[in-house]
């Protein structure tokens, strides 16, 4: 009983522990993916073109954003939280009201003949508008379209818009085309 060796700690399972940790980190770390609001810019207008025919007043949903980040929608001051509902009502025009946009019947694949709105959302901002405010407006308008499309997808296919296949998504997009036009900004507030 003189010299007793110290028993070694069993290290066979450390590899398992290491792998466990590795997998844990693999699952939990989110990679820094970029995300944002996707938009298409209108193609450049060649100079000396004929001005396009004017759009009827009722077909335009004018959204103005000034340098104080205040919102003027169809001539009325509005809070950003109400914009989405207002935009949805404009696009949908559920009661065929006179002051809301006209509709025209077009042939849509899958859906057949449907009434599609002629409405255009016109967004104009000031040069002094804060970027965040501008993006919030863009965001709300996008949300209005997304919700309408989502609703339609649920009603017609009983599925979420994201789960539809490409043709179905395209059909839904044809029923609710995203028409946001951006006017050249004004410089009223100065900067």
């Amino acid at each position, binding site marked *: *009983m003189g*010299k*007793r060796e*110290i028993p*070694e*700690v069993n*290290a066979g399972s*450390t*590899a398992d522990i*290491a*792998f466990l*940790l*590795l997998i844990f*980190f*693999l699952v939990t*770390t989110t*990679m*820094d*993916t*970029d*995300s*944002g*609001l*996707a*938009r*298409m*810019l*209108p*193609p*450049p207008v060649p100079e000396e073109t004929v001005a396009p025919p004017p759009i009827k007043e009722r077909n335009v949903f004018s959204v103005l954003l000034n*340098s104080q980040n205040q919102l003027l929608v169809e001539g009325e001051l509005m809070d950003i939280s109400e914009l989405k509902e207002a935009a949805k009502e404009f696009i949908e025009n559920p009661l065929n009201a006179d002051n809301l946009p006209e509709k025209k019947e077009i042939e849509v694949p899958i859906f057949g003949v449907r009434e599609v709105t002629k409405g255009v959302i016109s967004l104009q*901002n*000031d*040069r*002094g*508008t*804060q*970027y*965040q405010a*501008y*993006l*919030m407006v*863009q*965001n709300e308008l*996008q*949300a209005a379209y*997304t919700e309408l499309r989502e609703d339609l997808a649920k009603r017609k296919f009983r599925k979420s818009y994201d789960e539809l296949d490409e043709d179905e998504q395209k059909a839904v997009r044809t029923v609710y085309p995203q028409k946001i036009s951006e006017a*050249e*900004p004004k*410089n009223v507030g100065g*900067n």
Partner: protein
Amino acid sequence: MAKFRKKNKGGQPAINTSSLPDIVFMLLFFFMVSTTMKEVTLKVQIKAPEATELAKLEKKSLVTYIYVGVPSKQYQNLFGTEPRIQLNDQFATVSDIQSYIAQERDAMKESDQPKMTTSIKADFDCPMGVITDIKQALRKAAALKINYSARKKVEIN
């Protein structure tokens, strides 16, 4: 009762190091996965704006970045405190954007060129004037697919 006897008589026992390679590998893998290669050093301060309707930018190779913001502290005495544009590693003006886009487009594969996306990474507080100028320049450069970079907003309802 000689059960309790002083143990280590001769030298200290060696620590078992057979799991060290595992740990090192684990760290290696972890860093390999979580690091994203930084291509440019930001010279402007950017705090991304918030939004909810986000779309992910998929292919990194198709994306060209334009940074907009107030120059960082060490550049402020040179470039001032007004929001500036940064392309690649240097400050630029709106007039440089067209050639920058053309150059980036040439560097792409021909089949990818129509899918080119320009991501505008701008500070939430910068005025729209700069952004509008950039947008007009992009229109002229025929880079029409854009993406306003934003963070996911945490909703409180």
